[in-house]
């Protein structure tokens, strides 16, 4: 209850900031203010809005679940973040801001359109932003709903509300099939974010990002201290982790000691004894009816490390009055089954790949992916158009570098230790962060602190959702409506449409995420790869190569986007799961960068050069900008 209270206070803070931001921007030109904060964002705001938007639900939900599942190899997987601030902020920011100001652009598609004086290149950019950004929105909505579900779990009011919403939605197509607790949390989360984003616009998003960035940083540091104290030091945790072996996927029958006397439900995640000395954790729920004694087969994970089994048995979490028996053969991990030390080394355990989780080529791919796809995200690019001056940019790079160092490496430490403190989370991999927060604060006797710790990933998710919402709505309002449908729209019309589109995009995102894929990180990597593939090389060439033309840039966007889509489609055809196909062991993003670059070069060199005055405007000596 105290956790709910502190979490509630945090939410009130977010809404107060949105109201203040709305008032602060009332006297300024609506479109520039609503979508870009009048290009007057200072040091703290710029650094934190960038960092908070970058550290999304992926960083605080998907990434911890991967660390938990694969171990220390995730330190290598995330190593690219050591150079993300310098590349993602430094590579393009100065030129984007400069060119954006010369062009008078407010959105990324608009920047392309004016840089090349081509409506087609702008329309294509809008289409690609809206398409890929939608997957990001889906992932963040899922993350937000899951965090809320963990926080509210067990609260009587919440449980009653879940029963109520399940009754109301049971008959509805698509929505009715979603789990009640997830659906309720999804709605509450979505309404909150859509409301403050719609109301406050870019300035509210940036200000709440600052607050959320501070909450995230504090949350990680507090979690790190609590974790190390509770595992008895990092060395102790790592040695225990070195003894662990991956669980096995099994199917079991559950047999009650006595036939059921009444109807009851055993939820997903319950621990049940397997034979005399084994233990499984259920991957789905089941219901027993009166006189029934044995279930059909149920999916479960079988724990294979003796020390873990003893720890769980001693904790008293095992369900009494029933036992499980194996149905069929266990399915071991494709790599790492029975191998001690697999959680401390590369390539790390993998349930599906016989070569392990992270080979050298894939590690190199991710090192490149984090840095360069970060530079190629329109949501970051648009922030780079908003800083006040280049001194703000330079200092922000330093702040973000320090901030990322304080977040990403500690997360690896915290969630490798989580395996020791919180066994069996393979059943809910994406919920390991909030579960860990609840466990740490409960053990430390400070349950109220769980609200703040859970607010950290929640803040990360909110700060990303609000930015993505605004990016998609700016694409529709500025790039489609104002540019192509009604160029003479009044400020009042644009204002109403902006509010409407932000709300509608949010609602569509909620509908799309009723049944999301299991791993958040897959969605996030797909969307990041797609956007990076479409925009990184076209933006680099547009800013640094005077010979580039609209035909070349369009070819680059299409080649990048299509490469990612095709390699994900091939991945789906091979594995029947949402995931990428690693051609020659290399991530689709790198292939996309290669093909996109080639397409731009070929497309531009076979096209007429852009007119001299246009080139002069963005590269020549006649522009009124200068060096200091």
């Amino acid at each position, binding site marked *: 209850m105290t956790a709910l209270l502190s979490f509630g206070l945090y939410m009130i803070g977010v809404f107060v900031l949105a109201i203040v931001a709305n008032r602060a921007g009332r006297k300024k030109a609506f479109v520039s203010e609503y979508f870009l904060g009048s290009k007057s964002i200072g040091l703290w705001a710029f650094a934190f809005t960038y960092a908070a938007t970058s550290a999304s639900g992926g960083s605080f939900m998907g990434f911890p679940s991967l660390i938990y599942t694969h171990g220390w190899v995730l*330190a290598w997987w995330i190593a690219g973040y050591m150079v993300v601030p310098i590349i993602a902020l430094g590579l393009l920011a100065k030129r984007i801001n400069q060119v954006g100001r010369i062009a008078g652009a407010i959105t990324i598609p608009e920047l392309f359109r004016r840089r090349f004086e081509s409506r087609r290149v702008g329309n294509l950019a809008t289409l690609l932003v809206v398409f890929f950004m939608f997957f990001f929105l889906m992932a963040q909505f899922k993350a937000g709903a899951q965090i809320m579900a963990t926080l509210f779990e067990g609260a009587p009011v919440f449980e009653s509300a879940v029963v109520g919403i399940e009754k109301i939605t049971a008959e509805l197509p698509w929505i009715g099939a979603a789990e009640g607790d997830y659906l309720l949390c999804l709605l509450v989360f979505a309404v909150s974010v859509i409301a403050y984003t719609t109301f406050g616009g870019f300035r509210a998003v940036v200000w709440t990002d600052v607050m959320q960035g501070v909450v995230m940083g504090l949350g990680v540091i507090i979690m790190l201290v609590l974790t190390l104290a509770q595992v008895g030091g990092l060395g102790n945790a790592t040695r225990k982790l070195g003894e662990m072996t991956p669980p096995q996927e099994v199917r079991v029958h559950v047999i009650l000691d006595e036939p059921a006397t009444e109807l009851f439900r055993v939820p997903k995640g319950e621990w049940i004894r397997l034979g005399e000395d084994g233990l499984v954790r259920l991957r789905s729920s089941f219901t027993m009816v009166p006189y029934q004694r044995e279930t059909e087969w149920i999916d479960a994970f079988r724990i294979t490390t003796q020390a873990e089994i003893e720890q769980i048995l001693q904790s008293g979490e095992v369900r009494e009055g029933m036992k499980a028996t194996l149905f069929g053969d266990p399915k071991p991990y494709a790599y790492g089954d029975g191998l001690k030390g697999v959680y401390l080394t590369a390539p790390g355990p993998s349930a599906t790949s016989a070569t392990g989780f992270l080979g050298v080529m894939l590690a*190199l791919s991710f090192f490149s992916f984090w840095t360069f796809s970060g530079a190629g995200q329109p949501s970051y690019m648009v922030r780079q158009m908003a800083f006040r001056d280049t001194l703000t940019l330079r200092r922000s790079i330093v702040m973000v570098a320090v901030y990322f160092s304080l977040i990403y490496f500690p997360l690896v430490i915290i969630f490798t230790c989580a395996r020791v403190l919180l066994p069996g989370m393979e059943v809910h991999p994406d919920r390991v962060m909030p579960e860990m927060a609840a466990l740490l604060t409960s053990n430390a006797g400070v349950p109220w602190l769980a609200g703040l710790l859970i607010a950290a990933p929640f803040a990360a998710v909110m700060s990303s959702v609000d930015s993505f919402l605004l990016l998609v709505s700016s694409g529709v309002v500025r790039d489609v409506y104002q540019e192509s449908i009604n160029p003479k729209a009044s400020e009042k019309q644009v204002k109403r449409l902006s509010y409407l589109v932000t709300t509608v995009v949010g609602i569509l995102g909620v509908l799309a995420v009723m049944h999301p894929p299991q791993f958040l990180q897959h969605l996030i990597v797909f969307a990041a790869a797609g956007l990076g593939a479409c925009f990184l090389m076209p933006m680099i060439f547009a800013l640094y190569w005077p010979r580039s033309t609209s035909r070349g840039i369009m070819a680059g966007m299409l080649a990048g986007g299509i490469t990612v889509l095709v390699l994900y489609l091939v991945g789906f055809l091979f594995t029947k799961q949402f995931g990428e196909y690693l051609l020659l062991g290399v991530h689709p993003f790198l292939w996309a960068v290669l093909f996109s670059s080639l397409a731009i070069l070929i497309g531009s060199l076979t096209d007429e050069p852009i007119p001299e005055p246009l080139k002069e405007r963005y590269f020549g000596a006649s522009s009124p900008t200068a060096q*200091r």
Partner: protein
Amino acid sequence: MKEREPLADSFRQSRKEFLCMIGIWAFFAVWTMTCNSILAPLREGEEVPLLFGMPEWVVWGVALPWVLALSVTIWFALRFMKDTELEEEKS
């Protein structure tokens, strides 16, 4: 009021910084990949050496370059990058 120089100069400076950043990225990519390819793989039957409570390869292949990359980033942003005057917004 400082004297204004042509945009071409600011463009050239941005391009110089761009190339320098690519060089920094390549240096740390080579370090991390080389070091971890050699030290990180599982050797069955051997105990994984620890340093500061972490697997030793993490210290040499991730933590140390991370600290150095942070230092280089601070130097680059505060010393190497130059300020550029930006136009007032046109809307």
